[in-house]
């Protein structure tokens, strides 16, 4: 097994919904609840889930943009979860993030050259002509015209802006690159370009990536392993192909069945799973398995006992699922209700 670059151990992040005062003890949004992950050097870990399931919060906790409620983030053996901002700086160089919104993530009043040059300046790596040269090299590397050094972000398209964001993120040659839905704000025609760019860069710079998306087909395109999140928890994690062929968790099955297939014959032949209801409120998550109120396979135990994330059926140690009644290969998701 390859060594792990980043370990997330029992990470919990709760947000208070209202400011606590004398009269209310304050409710909490359970954005991320007891997530443990292992990211191996050189791999791409895909992180999928519906909007609001805590993927982005998890990413922000890893990169320490948010304070953890509890748990640990271990980067190359060093616990970084309780470091102060100044203690974090050396690690910031090595973990970078590409943000979702190519419009919001670039300061509209600053020139592109100085935006991309930020990491060099902040870490005192280059200045003057040297800085300019390195910024232009980066622009070239991500497929931007280096002559557009002096333009403002507003003068670029969404895809170009995302390239700017990527250039900034890889400027210091980080070990870990977290991509938070880097293509979901882009036109479909641009997506493939950006995804291919990320893959090329990963190969060239030997990046380890965490790739977050709500779109399984995008994640499949780039990921070695995929973790599925539901309501603040990882409910299944497996190597990409495994997950697509042998999904164990009913929720993963439902997600997979929602991927459109361009062939209408195949599309109508397969099992369509439409989940009833909306995801429950993360303020008061359901007891037991968080998926049980919507799960077609749920039985009484599911509402009581939270299933651990372990190997199910005859899977390898790489394929973990958190379900009391995992779906076997070839089995239909909806079982005949056993007479009770």
């Amino acid at each position, binding site marked *: 097994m390859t060594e792990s670059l980043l370990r997330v151990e029992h990470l919990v992040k709760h947000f208070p919904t209202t400011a606590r005062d004398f009269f209310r003890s304050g409710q909490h949004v359970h954005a991320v609840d007891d997530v443990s992950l292992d990211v191996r050097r050189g791999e791409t870990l895909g992180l999928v889930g519906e909007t609001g399931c805590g993927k982005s919060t998890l990413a*922000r906790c890893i*990169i320490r*943009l948010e304070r953890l409620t509890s748990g640990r983030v271990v980067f190359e053996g060093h616990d970084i979860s309780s470091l102060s*901002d*100044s203690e*974090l*700086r050396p690690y*910031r*160089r090595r973990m*970078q*993030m590409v*943000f*979702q*919104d190519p419009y*919001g*993530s*670039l*300061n*509209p*009043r*600053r*020139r592109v050259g100085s935006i991309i040059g*930020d*990491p060099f300046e*902040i*870490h005192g790596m280059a200045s003057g002509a040297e800085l300019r040269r390195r910024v232009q090299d980066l622009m070239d590397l991500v497929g931007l015209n280096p002559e*557009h050094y*002096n*333009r*403002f972000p507003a*003068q670029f398209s969404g895809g170009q802006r995302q390239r700017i*964001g990527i250039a*900034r993120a890889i400027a210091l040659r980080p070990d870990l690159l977290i991509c938070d839905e880097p293509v979901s704000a882009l036109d479909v025609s641009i997506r493939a370009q950006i995804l291919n760019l990320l893959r090329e860069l990963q190969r060239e710079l030997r990046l380890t990536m965490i790739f977050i998306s709500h779109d399984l087909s995008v994640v499949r395109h780039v990921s070695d392993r995929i973790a599925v999140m539901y309501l603040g928890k990882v409910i299944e994690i497996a190597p990409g192909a495994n997950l697509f062929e042998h999904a164990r968790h009913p929720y993963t099955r439902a997600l997979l069945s929602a991927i459109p297939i361009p062939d209408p014959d195949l599309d109508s032949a397969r099992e369509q799973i439409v989940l009833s209801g909306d995801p429950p409120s993360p303020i008061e998550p359901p007891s037991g398995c968080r998926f049980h109120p919507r799960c077609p396979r749920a039985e009484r135990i599911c509402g009581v006992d939270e299933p651990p994330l372990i190997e199910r059926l005859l899977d390898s140690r790489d394929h973990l699922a958190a379900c009391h009644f995992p779906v076997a290969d070839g089995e239909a998701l909806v079982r005949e209700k056993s007479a009770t």
Partner: protein
Amino acid sequence: MNDAIRARGPWQLAFERLSRDRWAIAATAAIGIIILVAVFAPLIAAAIEHPPEAQYRETGLSPSGIPVGPSRLFLFGTDGLGRDILVRIAYGARVSLIVGVLASGLAVAFGALVGIVAAWFGGAIDTILSRLMDVVLSLPFLVFALALVAIVGPSLTISIVVIAFFSWATVGRVVRAQALSIREQEYIRAARSMGAGSMRIMFVEILPNVAATLIVYATLLIPSSIAFEATMSFLGLGVVPPTPSWGNMLADSIAFYKVAWWFVAFPGAALVGTTLAFNILGDSVRDAFDPRHDQTIVVDADKEKDS
């Protein structure tokens, strides 16, 4: 090709809009003239051969001691001591401009600093600074100015400090509100994820985004500072006579307003004209930085026509 799509920054766009605005051009021209008059006040005095503090008891006053009106000798007439009002207005422009520019510059710089710091750090720092701004805004200006001048004595420096002190809080509030929304932007998060410290975020990321507001406030604070200074000099709290300022000239003219209209009219016109020009320029600058502001008015007018 490269010339067709030229890179234009927001500042450049604003400047281009401003240069198409006739009111802005007129106001700028007026301000330019005032600046020239102020700068060349000694030349004007030398040309007319009337120093600003010289009293012409023979030619400048009637036998009964009344100021004489505009004539070839005294273009704008004389004041109660027989001094040339034109020359004194030229020197008064220096006081007004220095106070206007310095006081509004100080107020904007300090207001921006406090506003950004309060918004960025939040928590107790924000509470303290915000309440401080509330206190400053609720202080009675004149009482405070009177008390301060009673202690340290009137001077130009004190005028500037007092005016800046009473102006910065307005700027601080507006900047704080803007910075609060900027601070939630994703590019701030990006800066933090790269390891930028508070200083860098406040001055490299946030400041350029409030700069347009600061420019607008700076231009709009100049006329109000000039008016403030005139008020203080009028009450004897500002520039010390015999140094001329438009405020103390107006104060002197009170005794003569029935017999010497020029004594009130010319310093008053200089004051009103200058503040008006700066106000018009300030409005134009605001419109240039926020073109949507202009459009909403047009839309509203259309709606009224329809209904």
